[in-house]
């Protein structure tokens, strides 16, 4: 059967054609784009690798990152430590592998909490408009005006506890309440454009209330851009965590974090640069991977770039 006949037959059978001839959807088009994008695959592999590292560090190294002996100070590679040992005599590679967990936890939870705040605020502002929008938008402006690092230093200075859990939660809390504004703005504007669609009027016409209209009809249609923003934000939250830990106000030993190791490596940079370079590379690649992934997804979903 020729191609034309197939199409004609598909149309005659009421439009239910075989999957290959299905009309294209935005997500389908985006996937087709992504599949051919090497940046997407590279970043995806990196993201999956870091995630696996955070979940099962034992798969990547058999050394204990807390097993430090001064006798091995700045010793070269060997004994399962491909990059050798740092000033304290710890396995540099093992510490970097185990450091992924704290970074990803902070990144993922900050992005999650940020997303929840942003969706709530952006949805309320965009849907109800008027004075609610005016009030919430000013709150966004105010929070946006606070320098992230300065505010984080001020807030984290108040927390004296050294318990790893408390510090992780504190860092997530601080990054979340300072970092949700961009995502909230994105959500607000996509809610405003979704609100004017006919299907929202149709839902109201059939008697749907505000809650149902917001969460069932508007939210699924305005979520795509914010997912992209949050993927990129996840990368920058990881960087921010490292920055805070580097400055000594984020996570603290015995928690293993790239930021802490970078700080320690910097002190003895003259003797050996490797303890500085390895965790820095892990950090840079992870942040880069999330940002590239977000970028690739955004490009794929933006019809104007096609």
């Amino acid at each position: 059967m020729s191609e034309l006949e197939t199409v004609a037959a598909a149309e005659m059978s009421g439009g239910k054609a075989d999957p290959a001839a299905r009309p294209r959807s935005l997500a389908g088009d985006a996937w087709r784009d992504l599949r051919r994008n090497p940046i997407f695959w590279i970043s995806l592999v990196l993201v999956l690798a870091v995630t696996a590292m955070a979940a099962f560090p034992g798969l990547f190294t058999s050394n204990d990152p807390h097993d430090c002996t001064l006798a091995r100070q700045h010793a070269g590679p060997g004994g399962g430590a491909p990059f050798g040992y740092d000033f304290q005599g710890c396995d540099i590679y093992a510490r970097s592998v185990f450091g992924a967990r704290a970074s990803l936890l902070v990144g993922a939870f900050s992005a999650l909490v940020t997303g929840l705040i942003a969706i709530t605020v952006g949805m309320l502002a965009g849907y109800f408009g008027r004075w609610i929008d005016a009030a919430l938008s000013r709150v966004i402006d105010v929070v946006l005006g606070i320098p992230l690092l300065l505010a984080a230093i001020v807030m984290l200075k108040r927390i004296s506890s050294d318990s790893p859990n408390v510090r992780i939660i504190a860092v997530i809390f601080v990054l979340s309440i300072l970092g949700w504004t961009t995502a909230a703005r994105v959500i607000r504007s996509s809610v405003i454009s979704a609100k004017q669609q006919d299907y929202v009027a149709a839902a109201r016409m059939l008697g749907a209330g505000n809650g149902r209209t917001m969460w069932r009809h508007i939210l699924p249609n305005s979520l795509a851009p914010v997912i992209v923003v949050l993927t990129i934000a996840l990368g920058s939250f990881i960087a921010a965590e490292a920055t805070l830990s580097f400055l000594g106000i984020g996570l603290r030993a015995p928690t293993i974090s790239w930021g802490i190791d970078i700080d320690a490596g910097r002190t003895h940079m003259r003797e050996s640069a490797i303890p500085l370079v390895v965790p820095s590379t892990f950090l840079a690649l992870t942040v880069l991977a999330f940002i590239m992934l977000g970028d690739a997804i955004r490009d794929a979903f933006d019809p104007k770039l096609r």
Partner: protein
Amino acid sequence: MSDQFGRQGAVATAAAGGDGGHLLEVRDLFVEFRTRDGVAKVINGVSYHLDAGETLAVLGESGSGKSVTAQAIMGILDMPPAVIPGGQILYRGTDLLKLPEEERRKVRGKQISMIFQDALSALNPVFPVGWQIGEMLRLREGLSRAQAKRRAIELMELVKIPAAKQRIGDYPHQFSGGMRQRVMIAMSLALDPAVLIADEPTTALDVTVQAQIMDLLGELRRDLDMAMILITHDLGVVADVADRIAVMYAGRIVEHADVHSLYEAPAHPYTKGLLESIPRLDHKGQRLTTIKGLPPNLMRIPSGCPFHPRCPYARQECVDVVPAVRSLGDGRTSACHLAQEVLDGRI
């Protein structure tokens, strides 16, 4: 509310002399849009009524206010910028404009439902059509998922979507334009409304599909015993389906008549112009007749009769005095100083 219902009903019964007043009645409705550039008076005293089992066509150019009237009836106008400074919308004798929002919601969909012009944008792109048709059945009728799905299939069969059972999980973009409009119709019929408002249901469709959809709407109206308000700018669409026609211009009803008398002899120069501008096969090779000029800017509606700048018969009176609605017998009305002359064909 039952008190109000009874009293209003009695008044309407007395007025209509029939069995229970009008099903839906718009009385002297005004709607304005207050924008930064000024106030656009979109609806200026519209009155029409609809009885059970009949089809009323509301005819007019874009911007004549026909859709806004429908949105006011449904209560889906965005307020602000829209404001309703006056008028009543009586459904079975109850003024919908005075109902609290919660009560109003119960009327929507279940009593009065609406079909939108562009079915693609009126369907939510992220949910399968079956889910959307069944949504309000689950939410408002308390049907289970399985029941709602079964009912959705029935509704899709009712609007003659082939292979309804297989297509229930498809998304709106997988349907053709005509099929999409059928989905939209199925969705608005889900709660078994007494009144269906069709807002230009065929404008976004091919000519061949238009006829099918109009036939379907006519059939459904008969079979389900609904009353229908058909909003359109297409005189050709109206003739077969409607019982009565209300012609709107600049937010007013300028002429109101049953279909046959209106086509036979219009009683308003605007209607006359509209009828004359229908392309005709027996006038082959001639220039198409048009109504000269443009519809008025609703921020600056002309004095007197709003149609006077475009009217071939306009005289001084038309510039100075807003014409009252004249009754011409048989329920016919026309808002024109020269209504009788136009009707008799004397000018």
